[in-house]
C-alpha cells in the first residue's frame, strides 16, 4: 500500500505540472481544447491525491509500522478514531492533507466554471495549479508520508518495522484538535481561489467586478473556516494546555490570525468596489495579501524560523517556502503595477461622515492590526538581523496595540452600518445614535456602581452595548416597515426581511457574534486564580467558593494510567459541583498529560488543573482559575458560523404586497 501511495504521489507531481502548463497555454492561445485538457488534469490530480490520502489512511488504520509516519503518530492501543485523524497529526500527513484540499478546490472550481468565466478560467487554473505543484513537490520530495523506516548499513539501506508505534501526541487527543487543523487548512487553502481569480483578472485585463462576484462565496467560505479554525485552536489551547487561557500571541497563533485580518478587511472593502467602483487596487492587494499570508502562515508553522511553543520540528521546508513566497509576491506586485492604470476609481469620496469613509477607516484599522501582528511576530528575526540579539515581544505588547484597535473596530461595527452612502447629516446621526449612546453611558454608570473601574473594560462593555443596540434597531426598524406594509407579524417580518438580503443581515449576525465574543475577551480583565497543595479532606478558597479535596483516585486503561482528584466546589455551604481534574500517563508515547476540568456557566468558568503530585501520591497540587465570560467566546463563535452560513444562502425572492411587483431583491449592500 505504501508503494501504491508513492506511485500515486509520483504521478501527482507531473499531472500538476501538466495542468499548470496546459492551463497557461490555454490562456495564451485561447484554445478551448487546451482548456478542456487542463480541466481534466485538475480532475486527475484530485483523483490521484484522493487515493493517496486513502492509501495513507489504510496504512494508519492497519498500523503498518514499517512506515515512519505511521510509527511516529500511532500505536496499536490507540483508539481507531485517533488512528484515522492521525492523518494530520504530524508534519508529512498534514502536508498531504493540504495538497489534497488544493486538488479538491481546483476540481470544484474547474467544474463550477466549466461554462462560465471563459476568459479568466485558464489563468485561474494556472494559478491554482502552480500552488498545487508547489505542495506536491513538498509532499513527494521533501516530506513524503509514505517513507519507510530504514537504517543505513554503510553500503545499503535496510528497511525495518517496529513492534509498536510511538502513539499520538496526547495533547492532540482532543476533539477540538481533531477538527482544528483541517478546518484551518480549508481556510488557508480557500484563499487560493479568490487569489487565482484576482490574478487571472490582472493577467487578462478583465478588471470589472466579475472576478469579485465569482469568488464572493469562496472568500466568505475561506474567511469563515479561518475564523472557526482560529477559535477552535483557542478552544483547544484552553482545555488542553492547562494554563487557563486561550490566546498567547504565539507565532503560530498569529500565523492564522494574519490572513484572517486581511480577509476581513477585504470582505468589507469589496462592498465599496461593488457599489462605488472605488478601492480597486486596494481590493486586489488585500486578496493577494491574504493568499501570501496563508502561505506565510504555513511557512511560519512548518519552518521553525520563529521559535514557538508549538513543537513542530525544523523540517527543512523553510527555503522552499521562502523561494515560493518570494516568487509569488514579486509576480503579484509586478502584475498589479502593470495594471495600475486600469484600476482607477470610478468615483471620489464625498464626505467624511459616510458609509464609504466608515469602510475606509475599517480597512485602515485592519491593515494596522495586520502590520502590528506581523511586526511583533517577526520581531525576533528583525532584531537579530539588526542588533544581533534575538528579542521577543510578549503578549502585553500585542495587547497594548490590539485592544485599542479591536475596540475601535467594534465601535465601527455599530456606527458604520448606520451611516448613509455618500453623506450622512448630523441630524440623522443624532437620531440614530442618541438613545444607544445614552444607554451605554447608563450602563457604564451602573458598572461603576458595581465596582468595575478598569477603563478598557468599561469602554469595551459600553461599546458592546452600543453596537448590540444598533444591530437590534437595524432588524426591528426594517421589520416594522415591512410588517406595516404586509401585515406580517414582527418575527415573520424579521425572518423574511433578512432572507431577502442575506448578505447584509448575515453580516449583522456576524457583528452581533463579534460583540458577544468581545464581552468574552473583556472577561479576561477579571480573571483570578489560586494554587494549593492538598491531601484528602483539605480545603481552600477562591472568591466566594470553597474547594474541598474529597479523594484522589487512581485508574488504568489500555492507553494510559491516571490520577484524578475529586474536588468539591461549594458556595455558602451549598455544594455546586464535583470537579475531576486528572493527570494521565500515556504508555506508548511515555508522556504525561493533564486533563483539566471546567465548570462552565454563562457568568464564569471555574477551571481546575491537577498540576502536580507529591512523590507518594498522597497530596496533589491543584490550580484553580476563575475566568468570567469565557463561554461567551464559544457561543459567539457558533453565532458567527451561523451568520457566515446565512450570508451565503441565496436571497429569497418575495414580492411585497403593497408594492405590487416590487423589484427583486438585489444581492448585497
Amino acid at each position: 500500500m505504501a508503494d501504491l501511495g508513492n506511485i500515486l504521489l509520483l504521478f501527482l507531481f507531473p499531472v500538476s505540472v501538466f495542468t499548470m502548463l496546459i492551463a497557461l497555454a490555454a490562456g495564451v492561445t485561447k484554445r478551448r481544447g487546451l482548456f478542456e485538457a487542463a480541466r481534466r488534469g485538475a480532475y486527475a490530480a484530485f483523483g490521484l491525491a484522493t487515493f493517496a490520502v486513502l492509501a495513507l489512511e489504510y496504512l494508519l488504520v492497519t498500523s503498518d509500522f514499517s512506515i515512519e509516519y505511521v510509527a511516529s503518530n500511532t500505536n496499536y492501543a490507540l483508539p481507531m478514531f485517533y488512528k484515522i485523524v492521525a492523518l494530520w497529526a504530524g508534519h508529512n500527513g498534514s502536508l498531504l492533507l493540504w495538497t489534497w484540499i488544493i486538488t479538491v478546490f481546483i476540481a470544484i472550481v474547474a467544474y463550477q466554471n466549466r461554462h462560465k468565466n471563459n476568459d479568466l478560467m485558464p489563468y485561474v487554473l494556472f494559478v491554482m495549479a502552480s500552488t498545487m505543484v508547489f505542495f506536491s513537490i513538498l509532499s513527494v520530495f521533501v516530506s513524503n508520508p509514505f517513507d519507510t523506516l530504514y537504517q543505513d548499513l554503510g553500503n545499503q539501506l535496510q528497511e525495518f518495522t517496529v513492534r509498536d508505534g510511538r502513539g499520538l501526541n496526547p495533547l492532540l487527543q482532543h476533539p477540538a484538535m481533531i477538527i482544528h487543523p483541517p478546518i484551518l487548512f480549508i481556510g488557508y487553502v480557500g484563499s487560493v481561489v479568490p487569489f487565482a481569480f484576482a490574478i487571472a483578472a490582472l493577467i487578462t485585463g478583465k478588471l470589472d467586478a466579475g472576478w469579485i462576484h465569482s469568488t464572493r462565496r469562496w472568500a466568505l467560505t475561506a474567511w469563515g473556516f479561518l475564523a472557526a479554525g482560529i477559535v477552535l485552536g483557542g478552544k483547544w489551547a484552553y482545555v488542553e494546555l492547562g494554563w487557563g487561557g486561550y490566546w498567547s500571541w504565539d507565532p503560530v497563533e498569529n500565523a492564522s490570525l494574519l490572513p484572517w485580518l486581511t480577509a476581513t478587511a477585504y470582505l468589507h472593502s469589496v462592498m465599496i468596489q461593488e457599489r462605488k467602483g472605488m478601492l480597486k487596487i486596494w481590493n486586489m492587494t488585500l486578496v493577494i495579501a491574504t493568499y501570501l499570508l496563508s502561505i506565510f502562515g504555513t511557512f511560519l508553522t512548518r519552518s521553525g524560523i520563529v521559535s514557538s511553543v508549538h513543537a513542530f520540528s525544523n523540517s527543512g521546508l523553510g527555503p522552499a517556502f521562502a523561494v515560493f513566497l518570494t516568487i509569488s509576491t514579486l509576480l503579484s506586485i509586478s502584475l498589479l503595477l502593470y495594471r495600475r492604470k486600469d484600476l482607477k476609481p470610478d468615483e471620489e469620496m464625498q464626505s467624511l461622515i459616510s458609509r464609504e469613509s466608515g469602510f475606509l477607516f475599517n480597512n485602515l484599522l485592519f491593515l494596522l492590526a495586520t502590520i502590528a501582528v506581523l511586526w511583533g511576530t517577526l520581531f525576533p528575526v528583525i532584531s537579530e538581523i539588526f542588533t544581533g540579539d534575538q528579542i521577543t515581544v510578549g503578549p502585553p505588547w500585542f495587547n497594548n496595540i490590539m485592544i485599542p484597535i479591536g475596540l475601535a473596530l467594534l465601535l465601527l461595527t455599530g456606527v458604520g452600518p448606520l451611516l448613509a452612502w455618500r453623506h450622512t447629516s448630523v441630524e440623522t446621526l443624532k437620531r440614530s445614535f442618541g438613545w444607544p449612546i445614552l444607554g451605554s453611558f447608563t450602563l457604564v454608570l451602573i458598572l461603576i456602581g458595581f465596582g468595575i473601574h478598569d477603563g478598557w473594560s468599561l469602554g469595551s462593555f459600553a461599546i458592546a452595548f452600543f453596537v448590540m443596540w444598533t444591530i437590534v434597531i437595524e432588524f426591528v426598524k426594517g421589520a416594522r416597515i415591512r410588517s406595516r406594509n404586509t401585515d406580517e407579524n414582527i418575527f415573520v417580518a424579521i425572518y423574511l426581511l433578512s432572507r431577502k438580503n442575506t448578505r447584509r443581515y448575515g453580516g449583522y449576525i456576524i457583528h452581533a457574534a463579534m460583540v458577544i465574543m468581545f464581552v468574552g475577551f473583556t472577561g479576561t480583565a477579571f480573571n483570578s486564580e489560586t494554587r494549593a497543595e492538598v491531601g484528602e479532606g483539605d480545603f481552600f478558597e477562591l472568591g466566594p467558593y470553597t474547594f474541598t479535596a474529597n479523594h484522589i483516585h487512581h485508574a488504568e486503561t489500555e492507553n494510559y494510567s491516571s490520577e484524578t482528584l475529586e474536588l468539591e466546589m461549594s458556595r455558602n455551604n451549598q455544594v455546586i459541583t464535583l470537579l475531576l481534574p486528572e493527570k494521565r500517563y500515556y504508555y506508548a508515547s511515555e508522556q504525561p498529560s493533564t486533563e483539566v476540568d471546567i465548570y462552565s456557566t454563562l457568568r464564569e468558568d471555574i477551571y481546575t488543573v491537577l498540576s502536580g503530585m507529591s512523590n507518594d501520591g498522597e497530596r496533589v497540587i491543584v490550580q484553580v482559575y476563575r475566568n468570567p465570560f469565557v463561554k461567551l467566546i464559544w457561543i459567539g463563535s457558533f453565532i458567527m458560523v451561523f451568520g457566515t452560513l446565512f450570508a451565503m444562502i441565496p436571497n429569497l425572492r418575495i414580492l411585497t404586497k403593497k408594492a405590487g411587483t416590487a423589484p427583486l431583491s438585489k444581492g448585497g449592500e
Partner: protein
Amino acid sequence: MNNKIKFIVGSAVIIAAVIVLAVQGMQEDSTMSYSKSVSEVQLMGSRARSLSLKVNGSLKKGSIIRNNLDLDFVITEGNSELLIHYIGKDPIPDTFNNEMDAEVVVSGRLAEDGVFNAERIQAKCASKYEADYSSAAI
C-alpha cells in the same frame, strides 16, 4: 478635495496613535525579552541581570527538585549549566519531568546570586520526534 484632506488627517492621527502604542510598548522592559542560550547568558556577565531573558537549554536529567509549590532544576548547554528557580504561577508543562529529555525555554530574570528566577517554563519534547527507532526494530 477638502474631504480628502479630512480623511488623510483622520488616518494620520490613527496611524500615529498606533505607532506611539507600538514604540511605547517596545520601551517597556516587561514586554521585551532577549532569547539566549545557557552559554550566551554566562558570556553576557552582569548585563544579563538587567534584562528580561528567555533562556533555552536542555533539562539536566534528574535535576528537578520539587518542594511544595516550588521547583528547582538545572538546564544545560554543552558544559554550561544554569540553576533555575521557578517563581511563576502557571502549571508546569506535562513534558517537563525527570524521566524525559526535554528542550526547555524559561522566561524570567537572573538574580544577583546567579540563580535564574523563571516566571514561565515552556518545554518541547524533542526526543519523541527525532527518536532512534532502530532499537525497537523487529
